[in-house]
């Protein structure tokens, strides 16, 4: 990335960060949804048998459930907050301002970079909360961190791309959701596999492979996303 590209991408990133810090719309929505869900899940799990929490979590099937629950919470929190990056520009009428001044690659990368950082912050917060509330043990913290970072980046990339592609449609929110389903399916599989392995409920190798898959997915979206977005960008 040469200097003008870097300046343009950082300008979009700064704009996104300042807007989010001042309005707190995306982060607050995602964090509140995630918090409420973690608390609900924790109550539900503890209600299975409050006196056997440790024993329950040593059972492999419950580690599967925890992996699925945590990944679902992270995914839906991201889905609530991330597509706003492009949809809000169209709804507020500021997309035309960007089209006049910016190149599509800079807009896509700037927004995606911000979404990735926001997803990492959100998933870290929700994971710590989930582990604290449920008392779940993480015997493979390296795999867990790798999955969280790779998964966060790939989810943010995929959802940013969905928002970008759907932004100019008349029924943009519904379309973004519809495009997201096939794009997110492989991430659901990898995310649950990786998390399960990090909780000690699967093979370590399988968890690492899932994390590598998610990182590769994120790299693919970073490289290919702007070219797809440029094709739908109105000049």
């Amino acid at each position, binding site marked *: 990335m040469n200097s003008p590209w870097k300046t343009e991408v950082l300008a*979009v990133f700064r*704009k996104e960060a300042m807007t989010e810090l001042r309005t707190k719309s995306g982060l607050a929505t995602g964090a509140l949804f995630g918090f409420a869900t973690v608390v609900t899940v924790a109550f539900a799990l503890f209600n299975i048998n409050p006196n056997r929490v440790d024993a329950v979590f040593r059972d492999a099937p419950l580690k599967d459930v925890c992996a699925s629950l945590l990944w679902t919470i992270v995914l839906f929190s991201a889905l609530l907050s991330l597509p706003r990056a492009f949809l809000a520009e169209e709804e507020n009428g500021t997309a035309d301002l960007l089209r006049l001044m910016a190149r599509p690659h800079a807009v896509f990368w700037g927004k995606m970079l911000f979404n990735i950082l926001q997803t990492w912050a959100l998933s870290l917060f929700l994971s710590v909360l989930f582990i604290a509330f449920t008392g779940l043990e993480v015997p493979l913290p390296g795999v867990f961190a790798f999955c969280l970072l790779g998964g966060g980046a790939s989810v943010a990339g995929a959802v940013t791309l969905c928002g970008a592609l759907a932004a100019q449609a008349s029924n943009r929110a519904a379309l973004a959701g519809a495009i997201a389903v096939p794009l997110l399916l492989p991430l659901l599989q990898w995310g649950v596999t990786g998390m399960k392995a990090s909780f000690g409920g699967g093979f370590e190798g399988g968890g690492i492979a899932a994390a590598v898959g998610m990182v590769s997915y994120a790299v693919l979206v970073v490289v290919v996303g702007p070219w797809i977005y440029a094709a739908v960008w109105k*000049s």
Partner: protein
Amino acid sequence: MPPEGDPRTALGYAALEMALYSSLTVDEHLSLAANLRGCDARADELLEMVGLTYARDLSAGQLSTGMKARLKLAMAIQPRPAVLLLDEPSAALDEQGRALVAQIAQEQTARGALVVATNDPQERSLATHELALEN
């Protein structure tokens, strides 16, 4: 600087219905526009010219319609464009604002081309050529 003819710097545009980022300040709008277009921000000079120096730290959401119109004019002329497109530039402006539009039009015609879409007789007087769009 972007290559000559790059529409981001060769074309300036300001219109009443064009939206601004309500949470960004006047200064941040000029800085964002300059960074995206690869041109000099010229914030002090432009804000003094459009009379918004006192409002540089106000967010766009706090600006009146007239102040927003002045900010859009500043953003439009920021890269010193070869072609400046103005859609009813005086619509939300007072007498001082109208004088500002006349000054911008004078400077632009010396530098390149100016296209104004308007129904206002005073704005029509800025033109050297008129094209009437009917029906």
